[in-house]
């Protein structure tokens, strides 16, 4: 079958900006995007650049935008893509600096990973490791160890899109991986560093990382686990942590969320933040968008209170 693939080309030595080019070639039912690219490189244009190695979704090097989505070229079928989108467009990973064609600079990805101290730290490495320790790790890994460092999640991350210093999904999933390792001796410190600016509380929960990860690492869920562990470890003062605890408290009392009361409770005592919210609060009030913070709890709240009470037991 003859098909056309549209590829975004960029060679910094000759191009001012990237441009799209069409390639027509013969493909079969089993042709993957990677095979198609290799064929183009062999038969049509030898200057086409991309990374690839294992061809079997293990090395994680051929991640690119395929019809606008972060995918491994070696496990994406050409015909399935055409079927799903009606065309096949290939571009380098979004939100990463492009070096040439599909080759991007992965430096931001590695820097973030390094920033979470992604390995077990021990004062004395000669001490024997308890076998129970290894079992606990297995029980709590939640697939966080399956990462092949392809960069899909970071490239798709909506927080990263808006805030380039965000630690990002892969690094935070790795932090969780180490966090459940009882051999590690700096767990409390690591958890503490994750509370700061650009850490776990900056994730907007867009679920992109969960969806694009080719290895089901589900980074957002690992971030949620880190958040839960943080609150359990006593890191409860950040606005992010308060969002969870105060939201839950409001619902526990009234059965529903009161959007006027929550921001007040979350920012209570943080005058700068409270001050910031005032103009919007006034606008919302004028437009009839502020639920009465002193209203009686709505119908159904007794049942919810009972459920909360039951959970506490």
């Amino acid at each position, binding site marked *: 079958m003859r098909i056309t693939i549209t590829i975004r080309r960029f060679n910094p030595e000759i191009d001012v900006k990237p441009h799209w080019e069409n390639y027509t070639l013969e493909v079969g039912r089993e042709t993957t995007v990677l095979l198609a690219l290799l064929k183009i490189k062999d038969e049509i244009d030898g200057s086409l650049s991309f990374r690839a190695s294992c061809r079997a979704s293990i090395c994680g090097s051929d991640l690119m935008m395929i019809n606008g*989505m972060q995918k491994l070229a070696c496990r994406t079928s050409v015909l399935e893509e055409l079927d799903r989108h009606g065309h096949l467009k290939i571009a380098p990973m979004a939100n990463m600096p492009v070096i040439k064609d599909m080759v991007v600079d992965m430096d931001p990805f590695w820097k973030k990973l390094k920033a979470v101290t992604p390995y077990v730290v021990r004062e004395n490495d000669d001490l024997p490791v308890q076998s129970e320790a290894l079992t606990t790790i297995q029980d709590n890994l939640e697939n966080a160890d399956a990462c092949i460092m392809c960069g899909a999640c970071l490239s798709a991350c909506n927080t990263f899109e808006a*805030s380039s210093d965000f630690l990002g999904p892969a690094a935070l999933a790795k932090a969780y991986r180490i966090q459940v390792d009882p051999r590690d001796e700096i767990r409390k410190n690591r958890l503490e560093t994750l509370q700061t600016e650009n850490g776990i509380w900056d994730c907007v929960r867009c679920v992109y990382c969960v969806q694009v990860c080719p290895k089901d690492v589900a980074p957002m869920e690992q971030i949620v686990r880190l958040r839960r562990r943080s609150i359990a470890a006593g890191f409860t003062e950040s*606005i992010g942590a308060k969002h*969870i605890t105060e939201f839950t408290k409001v*619902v526990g009392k009234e059965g529903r969320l009161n959007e006027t009361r929550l921001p007040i409770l979350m920012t209570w005592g943080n005058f700068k933040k409270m001050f910031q919210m005032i103009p919007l609060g006034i606008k*919302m009030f004028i437009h009839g968008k502020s639920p009465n913070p002193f209203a009686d709890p709505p119908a159904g709240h007794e049942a919810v209170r009972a459920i909360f009470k039951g959970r506490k037991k």
Partner: protein
Amino acid sequence: MKYAYYPGCAGKGATPELHQSTMKVVEGLGIAVHELEAFNCCGAGVISEADPDLAYTLNARTLAIAEALGLNIMTVCGTCQGVLGGINKKLQKDEALRSRINAGLKETTGLSYGGTVGVKHFQWILVKDFGVDKLKRFITNPLTDVSIAPFYGCYILRPESATGFDDWENPQSLEKLIKAIGAYPVEYDGRTKCCGFPVFLEKQEIATELVEKRVGSAKNAAGDAMVTPCPLCHMALDFCQKDAEKIHREKEGPSRLFDMPVLHLPQLLGLAMGYSPESLGMKHHLVPAAPLIHKIT
């Protein structure tokens, strides 16, 4: 066709116009609804961060109430749909989980959920149960020459395991509805991305930056208005637009204004069905819908 209508906290709180326009439109279309008046919050994914079993139990209560009524649930919020619908799927599939959650639910409220309820967003009901062709018969004021940017948001699409209606990579249901009312669906980058709402209180800078990207891209594609199935997306895109405008003008030049009305799905349909902007609660928007209204009248 009758549904147990779950208005959600936002519909009964900060976006009263969502509830108002929903009631108007379902009545006009002849879709019967039984409003769940004693409903509780779905937890919005936040309560499950504190305690997953608590979130399961709260949603099991909602499902059990609808089950006792013998009705499927209709949601009008993308986030409620993702959370309630996703938990429903888990409770249906995993019997051990269901009986564990039912034990607590029964003890505290006397209710128990058998796993037979369907949870559908109003948007999905229109496309599938009701049908786009039938909808066209109710359009008395087609919005010809109007370009609408569909904004899906996150939880009505992702994770796929919780939703499973549209193809999350290339959803089409809003586009179908926009075409059905005679308008033109704008193609732009960002229709399936995040509006920034979840960090609105923690990190306003991130939320504002995301709103700038979404509204900016809809604007560059010449959209007259945006439409969304999620009131939380509506709030972010509506509330942050003025702040986002400042960033936009720094990027694109001082003459660039942000005046993009952000409509709830039933409001957009209501306009095409001939209802007045007042009756659809348009006065509650921070960014006035006036330019759009002007164009269609």
